[in-house]
């Protein structure tokens, strides 16, 4: 392969030589004019010219005669011989001769990579620039997050706050440092001798204490607190002084009274919380009482009292004043009752509470504890009724019954209450169901499903039974007033069983309902009936426990009706496919039928016309009756303003014709008010994506009329806050926690740093 390449290169070389030769020939011939073989040359030329005239002789035969003085280095090859150098000859030479060394050299040259041409200067510069640009933009992109943060910030306060540099303790600074030089070591030894801490706790206790001492801010806060306390104290003192100066006796009296009231209130609280302290307090009261008894205050022995005593005969007021004073004395010297109560308190607090708290309240509380907190309201009303009912019951019973009612006994009472409530509910439900039943037949007759009719008939029968039950119940309820309590308590334990039973029952009925749908295929409709009847027969013996069941059944009934009315179309559609699977045409017809049925009631066109009429009516300006009865004529009851007047004042301004007057199929709303439209935003503004968003922002008020002070301040914070008179410096990398990009991080050979050298000038 190498050989071939060499050959090729040689070939190229030879071609080049040829190319070079041709122009060289011409000047050569001209230059040799001065030679002595001038004539011969000319002759030769002439011959050549003549021979070339016929155009055949392209390859002229140059002949080498003798060595000339000026031998061109290029002339060697082609000029002399006349035959061109053929590559094959050379190749042959290469092949035959032993040029191994040359070959080797050539190979070596070939194997060595050729140094590429240096790029031109512009290209180099461009590359430099591109590299520098990418570097710089990488450095700059660290600002992206900060710029974004600042753009999205709720508030920017300028000048941007700078964090104070944290002062690192000396230990940290010196932790990595060790004594190296002998001098240092000597010093360290000295320090060790003196037992000064060297490495770990470099600080003396004193220094540490000073470091640990309050920071400036803390100290400031502390000082402010102290100041505040002092100020408050001084205010209080001033207030006290002011009050002390007041001469009005009435004022002092009021103050004293207020204090006494307060004290008594506190005492009450203390009794509950801390009886021992309360006792001490009471002792104080006792002392005061003793003092009062000892003193002659409020006795009729003072100067004022004596004068009043004289006046008392004639003056009613004086008499009253004296009486008041005496009453006061009595009040003050009276022994306090509370003390005795407290002693008793430990014995039987419950009783006292029971005495104090009315019975009804207790019951309510019990109910609250009970299963249904939602019935609270009913409960109160019920209890009221119950109270009225129970009154006659309780009258014959001994009064001790109430008192002896312990906690254990209270529960049955509560249960009774629940029962009563239940009865009430049931009663109301029954009434409702009766109404429903009255309404039923009409609805049922419309549904032509025979099965449902049957079921309904069953249900009707049931409901009749229920009615009877209900009537009997009513009678019972009326008679219940006289029935002793013990009898009423009977159903209570049984009550729970039906309550629990409710669920399975419902499931059964649901199954029945499912069965209803399939009744066409299954003819065993009689099965559920006996079950029902059986259940009834089971329950008939005792009516009362049956009551919830009946309620249940009533509910069922209602459900059923709902189902029938709502599901009737779906039942039909279910039935349709079974019959029509074979014929597709019928399907279409049926669909049409369905649509017809679906829209059977509404006539669209008529509706539209009606709508339009309504719209027109609504948009018409209304007459305004401005007649003033009695104005300019007689007025009064039964008198009407004259027709003339009425005509005069009735205003019916004719509006402009409607735009859709001549368009029967269109309603053009003319509600848009031009005057308000000027105040409306026509296009959704930019940052909002939905009109509702925009509306919401507009509808939330900002002002302090609608917002608390704090919220108002928060809502109205300005986006940019600047301090007047403060210079705002450009943002710094150090401020935001970055290292400022210094020169060192990029190679620089141009600038020497001589910062701050010049500041002195």
């Amino acid at each position, binding site marked *: 392969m190498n050989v071939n390449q060499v050959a090729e290169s040689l070939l190229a070389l030879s071609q080049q030589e040829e190319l070079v030769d041709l122009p060289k020939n011409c000047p050569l011939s001209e230059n040799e004019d001065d030679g002595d073989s001038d004539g011969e040359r000319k002759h030769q030329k002439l011959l050549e010219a003549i021979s070339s005239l016929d155009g055949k002789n392209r390859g002229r035969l140059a002949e080498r005669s003798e060595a000339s003085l000026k031998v061109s280095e290029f002339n060697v090859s082609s000029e002399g011989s006349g035959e061109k150098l053929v590559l094959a000859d050379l190749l042959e030479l290469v092949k035959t001769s032993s040029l191994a060394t040359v070959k080797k050299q050539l190979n070596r040259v070939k194997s060595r990579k050729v140094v590429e041409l240096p790029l031109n200067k512009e290209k180099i510069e461009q590359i430099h620039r591109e590299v520098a*640009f990418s570097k710089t933009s990488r450095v700059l992109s660290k600002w992206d997050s900060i*710029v974004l943060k600042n753009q999205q910030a709720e508030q920017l306060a300028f000048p941007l706050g700078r964090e104070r540099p944290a002062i690192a303790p000396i230990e940290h600074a010196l932790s990595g440092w060790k004594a190296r030089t002998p001098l240092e070591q000597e010093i360290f030894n000295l320090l060790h001798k003196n037992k000064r801490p060297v490495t770990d706790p470099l600080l003396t206790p004193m220094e540490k204490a000073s470091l640990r001492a309050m920071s400036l801010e803390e100290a400031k806060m502390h000082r402010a607190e102290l100041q505040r306390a002092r100020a408050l104290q001084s205010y209080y003192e001033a207030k006290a002084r002011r009050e002390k100066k007041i001469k009005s006796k009435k004022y002092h009296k009021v103050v004293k009274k207020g204090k006494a009231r307060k004290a008594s209130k506190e005492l009450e609280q203390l009794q509950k919380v801390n009886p021992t302290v309360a006792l001490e307090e009471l002792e104080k009261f006792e002392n005061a009482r003793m003092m009062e008894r000892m003193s002659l205050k409020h006795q009729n022995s003072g100067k004022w009292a004596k004068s009043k005593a004289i006046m008392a005969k004639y003056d009613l007021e004086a008499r009253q004043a004296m009486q008041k004073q005496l009453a006061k004395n009595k009040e003050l010297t009276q022994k306090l009752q509370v003390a005795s109560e407290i002693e008793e308190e430990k014995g039987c607090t419950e009783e006292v509470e029971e005495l104090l708290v009315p019975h009804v309240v207790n019951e309510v509380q019990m109910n609250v504890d009970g299963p249904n907190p939602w019935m609270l309201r009913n409960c109160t009303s019920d209890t009221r009724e119950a109270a009225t009912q129970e009154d006659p019951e309780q009258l014959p019973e001994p009064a001790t019954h109430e008192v002896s009612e312990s906690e254990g006994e209270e529960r049955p009472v509560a249960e009774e209450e629940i029962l009563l409530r239940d009865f009430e509910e049931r009663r109301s439900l029954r009434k409702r169901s009766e109404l429903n039943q009255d309404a039923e037949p009409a609805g049922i007759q419309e549904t032509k499903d025979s099965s449902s009719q049957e079921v309904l008939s069953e249900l009707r029968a049931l409901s009749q039974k229920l009615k009877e039950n209900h009537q009997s119940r009513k009678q019972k309820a009326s008679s219940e007033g006289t029935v002793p309590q013990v009898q009423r308590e009977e159903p209570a334990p049984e009550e729970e069983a039906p309550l629990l039973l409710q669920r399975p029952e419902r499931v059964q009925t649901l199954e029945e309902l499912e069965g209803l749908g399939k009744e066409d295929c299954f003819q065993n409709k009689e099965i559920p009936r006996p079950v029902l009847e059986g259940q009834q027969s089971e329950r008939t013996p005792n009516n009362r426990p049956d009551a919830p069941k009946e309620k249940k059944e009533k509910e069922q009934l209602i459900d059923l009706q709902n189902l029938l009315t709502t599901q009737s179309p779906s039942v039909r559609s279910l039935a349709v496919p079974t019959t029509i699977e074979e014929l597709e045409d019928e399907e279409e017809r049926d669909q049409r039928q369905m649509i017809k049925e679906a829209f059977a009631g509404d006539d669209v066109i008529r509706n539209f016309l009606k709508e339009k009429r309504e719209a027109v009516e609504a948009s018409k300006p209304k007459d305004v009756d401005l007649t003033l009865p009695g104005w300019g004529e007689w007025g009064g009851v039964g008198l009407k303003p004259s027709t003339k007047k009425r005509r005069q004042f009735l205003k019916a301004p004719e509006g402009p014709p409607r735009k859709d007057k001549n368009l029967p199929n269109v309603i053009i709303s003319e509600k848009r008010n031009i005057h308000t439209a000027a105040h409306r935003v026509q296009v959704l503004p930019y940052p909002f994506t939905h009109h509702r968003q925009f509306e919401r922002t507009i509808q939330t008020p900002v002002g302090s009329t609608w917002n608390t002070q704090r919220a108002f301040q928060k809502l109205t914070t300005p986006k940019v806050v600047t301090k007047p008179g403060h210079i705002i410096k450009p943002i710094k990398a150090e401020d935001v926690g970055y290292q400022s990009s210094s020169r060192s991080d990029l190679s620089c050979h141009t600038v020497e740093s001589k910062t701050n050298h010049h500041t002195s000038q």
Partner: protein
Amino acid sequence: MKVKMLSRNPDNYVRETKLDLQRVPRNYDPTLHPFEVPREYVRALNATKLERVFAKPFLASLDGHRDGVNCLAKHPKNLATVLSGACDGEVRIWNLTQRNCIRTIQAHEGFVRGICTRFCGTSFFTVGDDKTVKQWKMDGPGYGEEEEPLHTILGKTVYTGIDHHWKEAVFATCGQQVDIWDEQRTNPICSMTWGFDSISSVKFNPVETFLLGSCASDRNIVLYDMRQATPLKKVILDMRTNTICWNPMEAFIFTAANEDYNLYTFDMRALDTPVMVHMDHVSAVLDVDYSPTGKEFVSASFDKSIRIFPVDKSRSREVYHTKRMQHVICVKWTSDSKYIMCGSDEMNIRLWKANASEKLGVLTSREKAAKDYNQKLKEKFQHYPHIKRIARHRHLPKSIYSQIQEQRIMKEARRRKEVNRIKHSKPGSVPIVSEKKKHIVAVVK
């Protein structure tokens, strides 16, 4: 006998001292405060109207220059000090609180092309048409001393702009190339070129301080990295960019003031599409400066007005003009973000409020609360047509107004033509170019 009567506990309504606040019982039951939306709407409407009533942005005019004001600079440490350079080579230092000139320097012969302060505020640099860069002390010369620059650098070419590094003793000038100088040397430590056109302004990035941006008269904006001493990228726009300004809060965002009446906000990492095209001016935009909060910027235009744009909006929120103000050449937003200064052709520097209706001075807490509430209401109801109309309404000089109308017609005509072309050509053959991309000719790597 017990008399039943209504009684209130005095503790609920009587103050303990007269210094206490009166207790006002509030009932937040919404049924007691009906019609929330209409009431707030009316409040918002009133707030908007009052805002317009109180919109008096013009504060002061500083006169003293004897030629058009060509450049302005803020003092980095002092809010009250402002420096300005005029077209006759004069530099003046102003005190804004007293509204007077405190120092005058004849700095250059010919224009003062650029002025910038050092980050420490002790000295400032100027470049002029006389091919010099001069450094001056901020404080005036002592008694009997001559007014002389600290340093003077004689250059070979005219410098058209200068900006100082935000942290180091390095500044950059521009002219035929962008030179970066060390303050101690008389030769630039680094020269960066890309193309051979004159560069009109150069600005250091205030956040990533080694970045520079420049704009040249061959319609391009070039970004440089000082550390790597190379240009980074170049974007070519439809027309020449007069100046750029970096966002002080967002390191990679800058805004370019263009001759085609628009401003372009770029993310420097993606130069092929501007983040936002801000249009409202009706003539070339000559200068732009960011609010220090980075939320807004102000632009000065040849149409004799300055406009304030929110960064993320393409339309301006405010336009300031006076009868006497001519072409506005330079504009600056003060570093407390409350005021705007602009220097114009007719030798005056004007001071404006950044918020036209803002009350100056100390606000009581109730005033502040009312202001915040009103602001919130205006924001909430800003889309309502009545409120929008009132809030947007501005009086404009006839020249600007008619120009706007004219340009609207022109724009509509262009749009119609484009639409027609799309309609009458094979679908897909005429590309639909978005407004943002329309003005970008190329991005050169």
